[in-house]
């Protein structure tokens, strides 16, 4: 793969990871923060890793980077779900503009 395309995709992937960091600081409660970091960081790191694999271009490196990408895409939702469940059991406050809370057992607020 040519050097220019590699550089462009590296910058795109790093920018998506930076968006995850901005969401981690600016979001109002822990559930939205977790939503921002788990999705955006997985996508950004996947773009960087796939670019690395096609930059070297040999079968061993492409297999290794795709293995890391598949592993990240399997484990990130599991970790995020467990952490969200733990946060809800600890009664962490929701954002005050939250529309509905399905786990509360009451009727819908909206």
């Amino acid at each position: 793969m040519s050097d220019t395309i590699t550089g462009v995709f590296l910058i795109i992937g790093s920018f998506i990871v930076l968006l995850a960091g901005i969401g981690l600081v600016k979001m109002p409660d822990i559930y939205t923060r977790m939503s921002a970091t788990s999705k955006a960081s997985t996508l950004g790191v996947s773009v960087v890793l796939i670019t690395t694999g096609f930059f070297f271009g040999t079968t061993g490196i492409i297999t290794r980077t795709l293995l890391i990408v598949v592993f990240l895409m399997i484990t990130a939702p599991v970790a995020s779900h467990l952490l969200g469940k733990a946060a809800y059991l600890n009664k962490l406050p929701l954002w005050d503009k939250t529309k509905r809370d399905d786990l509360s057992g009451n009727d819908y607020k909206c």
Partner: protein
Amino acid sequence: MFLGFAIDFSLALLGFTILLAIVRLIKGPHTADRVVAADLTTSVAIAFIAIYSIRTGETWILDVGLILGFAGFLGTVGYAYYLQLRGKK
């Protein structure tokens, strides 16, 4: 020529992301916020390793990224388990 600039710029963006994660790590009102910040730091470290391997041409270091992803996942699951135990009682 452009690739060198792109590598430096990407490393700067990732370093700024780690800085934002450290802000949340210090400020976070609860332990769960800090665990989220540590998880993001692990992901950024994997991206760092990939860009480092492009810069130096050494490809063995990608194995370190694989093990780092595994360790980060186990750490997050362990913290979530103990937070869940603390919330139940």
